[in-house]
C-alpha cells in the first residue's frame, strides 16, 4: 500500500502539470485530451519511477523513455521540467516556435532529453523493444519505459513488437498503455474495437497489470512491484483512463483530442482541477 504522503505529493505534482498544460493550451494548440488522460501515469514515471540524471541525459545508466504516443509531448515536457530538465517557462516560450525544442510531437534532434523522435503512431514501441534488446545485450540494469496509446494499437507494427519483446524475453521493457478508449474519430470500440485489450497482450505472453490509471496509489504500488530487468517477460501496465480527465467539458469528448482553450473555459478547467485536489487533500 503506497505511502499516503507520497500519493499526495505525486497528485500535487500531477495537478501542477495539468494546470501548466492548460496554460499552454490557452496559449496554443496542444493534444490536451491525451495529455490529461496520461498525466497521472506520466507524473509517476518521471517523478517517481525513472532513474535519470538531468545533468547528463546521455548517462549510460539511465532508464530510457520512449513516448510511443508521440502526441503527448507537452505532458512529457512538463513532467521532465518538474525534475529539472528545463525551466517550465522555456516550454511556454519555445513550444511550436521555429526551431524550438518543444512541439506537437517529441523530437530528439531538437531536445537532448528525448531519446527517440516520435509522432507517427506504432513506431515507439518497436524502437523501445530494440533498445531493450540492446540493453539486455549490454547486461544493463536499466529499464526502457514506453508510453503507448490505445488507438495506436491498431497499427500492426505494435503487435510485431509485442511478438519480438516476448520472443527475446525483454523483462527490462515496461510499457504503460493509456487506455482512454478514444482515438481521433471517436470511441475505439465503435470505430475499431480493441477489447479484450488486456487479454490480447496476455495472449502474446506479456506480463499484464491492469490498473485505474488515475489512482496514484495504484500507480505507485504497480511501479513498486515491477519485476526486475532479468524477468523473462515484458510488462504492460494497462491504465484505464479518461481522455480529458478532470475537466468536465473535455472528458470523453473527441473534439478535445487537440485544441486551444479560450479564456472562460481555461479558468473553469483550472478551477475544476484545483477544487478536485483540494476536496481530497485540503487547500495546502
Amino acid at each position, binding site marked *: 500500500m503506497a505511502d499516503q504522503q507520497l500519493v499526495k505529493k505525486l497528485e500535487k505534482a500531477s495537478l501542477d502539470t495539468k494546470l501548466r498544460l492548460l496554460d499552454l493550451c490557452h496559449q496554443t494548440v496542444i493534444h490536451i485530451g491525451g495529455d490529461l488522460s496520461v498525466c497521472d501515469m506520466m507524473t509517476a514515471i518521471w517523478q517517481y519511477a525513472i532513474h535519470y540524471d538531468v545533468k547528463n541525459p546521455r548517462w549510460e545508466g539511465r532508464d530510457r523513455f520512449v513516448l510511443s504516443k508521440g502526441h503527448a509531448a507537452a505532458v512529457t515536457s512538463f513532467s521532465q521540467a518538474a525534475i529539472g530538465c528545463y525551466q517550465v517557462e522555456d516550454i511556454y516560450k519555445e513550444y511550436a516556435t521555429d526551431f524550438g525544442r518543444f512541439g506537437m510531437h517529441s523530437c*530528439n*534532434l531538437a531536445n537532448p532529453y528525448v*531519446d*527517440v*523522435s516520435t*509522432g*507517427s503512431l*506504432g*513506431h515507439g514501441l*518497436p*524502437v*523501445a*523493444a*530494440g*533498445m*531493450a*534488446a*540492446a*540493453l539486455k*545485450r*549490454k547486461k544493463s540494469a536499466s529499464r526502457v519505459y514506453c508510453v503507448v496509446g490505445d488507438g495506436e494499437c491498431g497499427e*500492426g*507494427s505494435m503487435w*510485431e*513488437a509485442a*511478438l*519480438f519483446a516476448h*520472443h*527475446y524475453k525483454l523483462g527490462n521493457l515496461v510499457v504503460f498503455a493509456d487506455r482512454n478508449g478514444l482515438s481521433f474519430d471517436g470511441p475505439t470500440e465503435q470505430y475499431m474495437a480493441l477489447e479484450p485489450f488486456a487479454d490480447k497482450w496476455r495472449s502474446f505472453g506479456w506480463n499484464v497489470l491492469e490498473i485505474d490509471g488515475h489512482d496514484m496509489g495504484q500507480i505507485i504500488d504497480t511501479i513498486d512491484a515491477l519485476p526486475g530487468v532479468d524477468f523473462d517477460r515484458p510488462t504492460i501496465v494497462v491504465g484505464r483512463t479518461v481522455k480529458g480527465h478532470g475537466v468536465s467539458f473535455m472528458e470523453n469528448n473527441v473534439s478535445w483530442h487537440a485544441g486551444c482553450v479560450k479564456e472562460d473555459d481555461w479558468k473553469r478547467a483550472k478551477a475544476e482541477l484545483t477544487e478536485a485536489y483540494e476536496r481530497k487533500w485540503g487547500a495546502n
Partner: protein
Amino acid sequence: MGMDVTLSIQDLMSARDAVGKCLGDLGAKYDNMVVITADVDVSSRIGQFKEKYPDRSYNTGIAEQSLMSVAAGMAHEGFKPLCFAFATFATMRCYEQIRTDICYSKLPVIIIGNNAGYSNGISGCTHCGLEDSALMVACDNMTVIEPGDPKQIVKVLEACMELNAPVYIRLGREATSSLYPDDVKYEIGKALIPREGDDGAFVCTGIMVHFAMEAAQRIHDELGREIRVVDMHTIKPLDKEAVLAAAKTGRVVAAQDHNLLGGLGQLVGSAIAEAGMACKLICRGCPDEFVPIATPEFLYARNGMDVNGLYEAMKSLF
C-alpha cells in the same frame, strides 16, 4: 585487418554469397555489429555469422517494420545493425520506419535488400524490387549503393560500417565475375571505371555494369569506337564529376535494373542538365509497367537492358 575472401578473378559469385562469406570477419572487426533478418537467415547467407556469433544474430520473423524499428532502437544504444530482407519488403513494407526511425536520427543502420531488380523475375511482381532505389534515394541522410562487383562487397561493407550513417545496399541474385584487381580502392560516392574510352560512356550499376562491359567490347570489335564504362556503385550521393566527365564524350547510355522513373538514368540526366551540358542520352531500365512472371534474361532483353540492348542503344548515338 586481413579479410579472408579467397576468390580468384575467374570465380563467379553472387553478391549475397559474397556478403555471407565476409560477415564473420566483419563481426570480428566490429564488435558492436549485429545482424538482424526478417526470416531470411538462409537466403541472406548469414549462417556463418550466426554460427560464430549466435548472440549477435536476431530474427524478427516475417515482420519488416519490426526489423527496421528494432534496428533503430539498437543503433540508438550504440550497436551497428546489418538488416537483411528482400529489396521489395526491405524498402516498401517498412518505408516509414526507415525514414522516420532510422534516417531522421541518422542512425548507423545498414539495410541489405536482396533480389533487387528483375533478378528474381520468375517469382513475379511481388518479389521484384523495382522501386527500392527511388524510395531510398528520396530519404534524407540515406546513402544508396548497388555494387557492380561481388568481390567488392567486403570493401563496401567496411566503408559502410565506417560511414556511421544509414545505408541501403541493393543486390541482385545473379552470379557474376569480378571486374577489378584485389587492390582496387573503393570509396563511397566515387565511381569506378572498369573500362576507359572517350567516344561514349555507359553509366551503370550492378549487373548492368557487366552487360555494359560486354557491349563496350563489341563496339570496340565491330565499330572501332572506345566506350567508357562507369560503375556508379553509389547511386546517392551521385558522383557528379564522373557523370559530367562521361557527358563530355557526347554520348551516354545510363542503365539500372530498376524502374526508369526515379532510377539512375533520371539522376544522371538531371546532373547533366543542371550542369548546362549538351549530350546525347539514352536511359535503360524497367518501363512504367508491372513485371510479368518471366526470367531475368527475357526481361533484360525485352527492355533493351541486356548486352545486345545496351550495344544497340550506344550504336544508335553514333
